[in-house]
């Protein structure tokens, strides 16, 4: 499937800031399931620099803007050819040891309820069948947290989301990671884009899911928010231990002003 992405992020400050520094994870890597045809990230008035590919295979770029600055617009546009690999991440260059994702972060620290959910989900699964366990955990999270926008926020933890029983894709992914960690399955957060046809009632175009490490298969994506594994509708941007670490844009504005954020994302299929 050939998909085009247009992703605009606008930061507005009610008082001029004397500088902005951001770390961008905004360029998809080439994998067996995605080939980048063209891709641009543009910002007006900033300097981009300090770029590198990190051990998890993501391309990172640093944006610095010298103030006074009252508004920044980051435009991402590109075309990606995708393939369905049933969620399996193949052909992705990375050197991060999977075990480095066994340590929970603030957002993915399991509580007793998550541990109980994880235990119950895998009780009928043969010991050592990690793939089956991963599917079971993902189903359990889908069932336990209803997709409900507006009930959670950026700082909501996996445990809080489960307690509420409501959340968005970020909460589903955090909860699945936490559950996986309970079963000692390495798990991480993936940020990306999702194409949905006009008639499908799916989550927003800016999306997140989880990857669990399955022996012999490697990293496999699970999207509990949509009760499936990533397929050709998904574009993978980057990963991290949780939403904060995997964030496509992580930044800080230096100054006294308050920040307002405006994001619009569109993913469309190219007719060929």
């Amino acid at each position, binding site marked *: 499937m050939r998909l085009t992405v247009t992703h605009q992020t606008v930061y507005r400050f009610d008082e001029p800031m004397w*500088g902005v*520094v*951001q*770390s961008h994870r905004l360029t998809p890597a080439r994998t067996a399931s995605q080939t980048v045809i063209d891709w641009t990230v543009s910002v007006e008035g900033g*300097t*981009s*620099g*300090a*770029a*590198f590919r*990190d*051990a*998890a295979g993501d391309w*990172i770029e*640093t944006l*610095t803007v*010298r103030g006074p600055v009252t508004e920044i617009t980051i435009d991402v546009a590109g075309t990606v050819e995708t393939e369905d690999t049933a969620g399996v991440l193949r052909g992705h260059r990375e*050197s*991060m*040891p999977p*075990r*480095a994702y*066994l*340590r929970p972060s603030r957002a993915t620290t399991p509580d007793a309820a998550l541990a109980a959910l994880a235990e119950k989900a895998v009780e009928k699964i043969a010991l050592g069948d990690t793939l089956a366990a991963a599917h079971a955990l993902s189903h359990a999270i889908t069932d336990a947290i209803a997709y409900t926008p507006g009930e959670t926020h950026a700082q909501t933890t996996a445990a809080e989301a489960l307690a509420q029983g409501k959340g968005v894709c970020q909460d589903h992914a955090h909860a699945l990671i936490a559950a996986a960690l309970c079963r000692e399955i390495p798990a991480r957060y993936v940020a990306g884009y999702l194409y949905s046809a006009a008639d499908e009632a799916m989550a927003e175009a800016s999306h997140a899911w989880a990857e669990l490490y399955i022996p012999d298969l490697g990293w496999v994506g699970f999207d509990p928010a949509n009760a499936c594994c990533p397929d050709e509708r998904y574009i993978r941007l980057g990963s991290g*231990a949780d939403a*904060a*670490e995997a964030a496509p844009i*992580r*930044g*800080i504005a*230096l100054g006294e002003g308050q920040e307002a954020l405006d994001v619009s994302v569109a993913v469309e299929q190219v007719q060929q």
Partner: protein
Amino acid sequence: MSKTPRYFNEMFENGKLRPPYKGLEGWARDMPVDLRTMKQNEAEALFRRIGITFAVYGEGGDPDRLIPFDMFPRVFTDTEWRKLERGVTQRARALNAFLTDVYGRGEIIRAGRVPANLVYCNEAFERAVVGIRPPRDVYSHIVGIDIVRTGPDEFYVLEDNCRTPSGVSYMLENREIMMRMFPHLFQENRIAPVDSYPRQLKRTLASVAPPKCEGEPVIVILTPGSMNSAYYEHSFLADMMGMELVEGQDLFVDGDFVWMKTTEGPQKVDVIYRRIDDAFLDPLCFRPDSMLGVPGLMNVYRSGGVTLASAPGAGVADDKAIYTFVPEMVRFYLGEEPLLQNVPTWQCAKADDCAYVLEHLAELVVKEVHGSGGYGMLVGPKSSAGQIEAFRSKIEENPANYIAQPTLALSACPTFVEEGLAPRHVDLRPYCLVGQDVVLVPGGLTRVALTEGSLVVNSSQGGGVKDTWVLAD
């Protein structure tokens, strides 16, 4: 309650004066009490005048408290020191090889010599550093190794400090003050100088300039600020090395580099000797609420625009649980036998070890895996039954957080006390520099437990310091 074990007396062995202390016996014996008091007051006045003070965490009180300085030096012979030097530099090389390995291919783990989870699930293991090759493959540029002596020829490593070991300013100032107060001692004894340390440190830092640096590197020291208890040391080192002492607010990232704000505009910085913890280095990478760090610093570091000394993540090598494996590292990476011994250690994370520890609490020293400064530890033989029971429940609650070691009979060195000269227990922290070369200045920080019988030498727990002499051959 106080059972003081037999210990090695560094000055008198079986009642006989040991040779390295020959030059000090008469001096101490003949010093009239009033002269001693006068000199002690003079030393204190000097310390106070130069502003070398020490704030104790969480104790409140006088922030300008001095660490007590004991005038009686601790002495090593040239032969003893050479042995220590070989052992310390060996260990520093092995620790750096380990760091290069675990942030690279992880051969020691693949070879099954160190358990994978101990490294990768360690809180000090930084994902952000994986795959980075710092200049010359050095992660820990200043390795402080805490050593105790238990016999004429027996030294044990108590712990390694790979992050930012402090105290080196005391090594230099103690010497400075001793030379000023007792110049004749330095004429009568041939004592190896330590004053090259700042120069060596500067050379070490310059030798790890990033690949993108052309010409003479600009080196700075990054401090958490003047409220930090080691601030004196930060400013002392900056002064001795002739470099700027910066806070996070003095630095900013622009494009590919880190810059410092000067009265003449931005100036590029190449090497940062940072004295702030990993978690506070960069709010974009670590703690987002850090006000001490520099946003974007880690990206510049990871793309080779600046060198951080020590590298973030270096702490995974000095963790108390990893400590057990250091001799293994020496064998694995260097193909050598370790010259310095480890203290036998029980890991409470292991059920068998934990059971043993809980049974023998009254004999053991129990420490928190990530603790420092002598806090959160139990010295079994020096503790009351109540203290032991309280500690027992802490261990039972979170066994993985504790390790235990036998109570070592730390050597004792004569120390001036109220009644005259009396033996007090000491340890030693030499500072090994790792860059293009691996060097150790002949000396270190000797810490002394001033309370009779006490084995806790930490300055935060009432310990003092001494000048440390290495006699030239």
